């Protein structure tokens, strides 16, 4: 198909920074930020041979250990399913629940909004019901819970678990979902529709995505190798993460900007010149009044699919100076789909806080499309401005710009 897209002509005006009050993430490399940082520094991958489901397809996955042994507390039992459990595990890290409770005390629970991204939500529970339909063709008794068979399931669970009463919404734009929630939070705060917003994303392993990506022939039989010239595809991972955003610039870590765009090209392939992705980068930088030359670190989408990495490598080579350190962390976590935005935003915030910028695990020989920005090895220096990029099926792009406070 010929690209027919009309480029949005003008970049947006700068927006006020927002405070990232706190954040957390849980994935195959650990529960919470401390474990995540240790695994990144130790180059310890969370990928393992696919052992999910009855007849696992030959691939590697980023599976969070211990979900099966971590049921929800009884008052929340109506939300039981793998996605809710993963969300709950993540909420329990980094004092996140307490910090949200403090925000509710400051502002009132009806002034704290919730926007979560997911691609498949708790569809694993629906799959399970279909494997075990009762003799009359209905859902088995223990899965007759409508609240877990709809895309909003996980967000509604988190809203109840945190006791929030503000606006509450699920964003489901495939792999950009939990990046786009930051943009939504900015709008909720700017219009004074909320005083604080919990953003995040949750996606757990399920047959739909493992067999679906297998049907698209996008799964790598080996641990994924982002930006490697002989990469063979993606590994599916699962993750959950959350951040609490408020107006003001009091925090050490700030959301400076975001850019959203559409490829208008293809349902499951990126635009060959990355046209939509470039607009998203341009708009994130414009909202943050930041030139590309000021970007110290980029957490790339870097799925290790042939097309994504080729397009993204060219984009980075063409838009950023050689000194920008860019890398993909999918070799640690796998592609966590609707949770990739928040997981990688969390890793970007760790880089801003500590100065530690991960390399690209499992990549040995860089694709020739890569410029000097894409790094195999980690490095440490002062990180003042950083981007996190997320691109999804349906041509949905979102780029987030974070920065350190005190130097704006």
């Amino acid at each position, binding site marked *: 198909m010929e690209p027919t897209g009309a480029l949005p002509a003008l970049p947006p005006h700068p927006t006020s920074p927002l405070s990232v009050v706190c954040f957390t993430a849980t994935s195959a490399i650990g529960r919470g930020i401390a474990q995540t940082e240790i695994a990144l520094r130790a180059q310890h991958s969370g990928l393992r041979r696919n052992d999910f489901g009855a007849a696992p397809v030959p691939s590697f996955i980023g599976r969070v250990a211990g979900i099966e042994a971590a049921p929800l507390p009884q008052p929340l039992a109506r939300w039981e399913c793998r996605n809710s459990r993963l969300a709950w595990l993540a909420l329990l890290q980094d004092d996140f629940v307490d910090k949200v409770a403090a925000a509710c005390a400051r502002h009132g629970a009806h002034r704290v909004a919730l926007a979560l991204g997911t691609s498949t939500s708790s569809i694993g529970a629906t799959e399970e019901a279909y494997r075990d339909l009762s003799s009359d063709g209905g859902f088995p008794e223990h899965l007759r819970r409508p609240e877990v068979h709809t895309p909003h399931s996980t967000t509604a669970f988190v809203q109840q678990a945190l006791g929030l009463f503000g606006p509450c919404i699920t964003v489901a734009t495939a792999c950009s979902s939990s990046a786009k929630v930051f943009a939504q939070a900015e709008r909720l705060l700017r219009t004074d529709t909320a005083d604080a917003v919990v953003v995040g994303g949750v996606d757990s392993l399920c047959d*739909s995505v493992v067999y679906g990506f297998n049907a698209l022939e996008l799964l790598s039989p080996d641990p994924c190798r982002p930006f490697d010239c002989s990469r063979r595809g993606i590994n599916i991972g699962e993750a959950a993460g959350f951040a609490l955003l408020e107006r003001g610039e009091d925090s050490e870590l700030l959301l400076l900007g975001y850019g959203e765009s559409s490829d208008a090209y293809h349902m499951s392939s990126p635009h060959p010149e990355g046209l939509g992705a470039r607009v998203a980068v341009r708009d994130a930088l414009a909202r943050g009044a930041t030139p590309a030359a000021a970007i110290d670190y980029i957490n790339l989408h870097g799925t290790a699919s042939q097309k994504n990495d080729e397009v993204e490598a060219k984009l980075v080579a063409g838009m950023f100076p050689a000194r920008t350190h860019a890398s993909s962390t999918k070799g640690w976590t796998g592609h966590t789909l609707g949770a990739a935005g928040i997981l990688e935003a969390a890793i970007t915030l760790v880089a801003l806080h500590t100065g530690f910028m991960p390399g690209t695990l499992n990549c040995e020989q860089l694709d020739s499309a890569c410029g000097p920005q894409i790094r195999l090895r980690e490095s440490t220096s002062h990180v003042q401005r950083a981007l996190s990029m997320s691109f999804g099926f349906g041509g949905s792009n979102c780029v987030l710009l974070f920065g350190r406070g005190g130097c704006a």
Partner: protein
Amino acid sequence: MSASERRVWIEGIGLWAAHLPGWDIARAILRDEAGTPPAPAPRPVPALLPPNERRRAPDTVAVSQEVAHAACKAAGRDPRSLASVFASVHGDLAITHYMCETLASDPSLLSPTKFHNSVHNAAAGYWTIATGCMQPYTAVSAWHHTFAAGLLEALLQSTCNHDPVLYVAYDVEARGALATMAPSSGMLGAAVVLAPERTCSASWQVDWDSVSVAQAGGDGPHLRPGDNAMAACLPLLTALAREAPAQLALPLGTGLELHLRLLPLPQEPG
């Protein structure tokens, strides 16, 4: 943000259901509740798609494109110039049923096309591909509160970005065993183009606010048998059909409502 900044203008409206096929017919039926619905209309043809894709396009794509296109046309806006918000309670229930049934019997038979059409943003993705629109879209859900939550996001976007926004809300018929947990009948789609400034296309002024209310709103709209899951769009569309000033309180959650004050604008003759 002051109340006067929480103001948008409606420029175009689209509505489609088998018994409400298009805004002109629907407006007459919604205005006069005693009116007899016409015989059910056949599924709309997604005319923006290439001819060989029209018949096999999912219902979600057919109904959402029908109302999105109608709203843009009524607004006199080029679809390529509009950011969009697509809202659906359950997404593509037919594909979800297909996926779960296939995965339960023989996962190796899963269709790659059905898989990439199973994402919640498939309708939005096809819309931007068909129209060549590179403006951002989002695809959202909020269970019983989906219509109001999606409308709030569209209002936020138009207000924050000072750009017109296309809002599209739709759901389709539930299939198989899933229908017992996620009930929805027929196809229903509604769309409006919201603009941050009054232009000659504007037909309504809308003042909006999200308001916490002392009385708990409960679980939100409950569906009656035979309802589409997006039936919560109908109070707004009915108010628009009546062409009289109106105030609406759409439930956004427990103790939270989206308040809309609707003021019809005089139309230029012809």
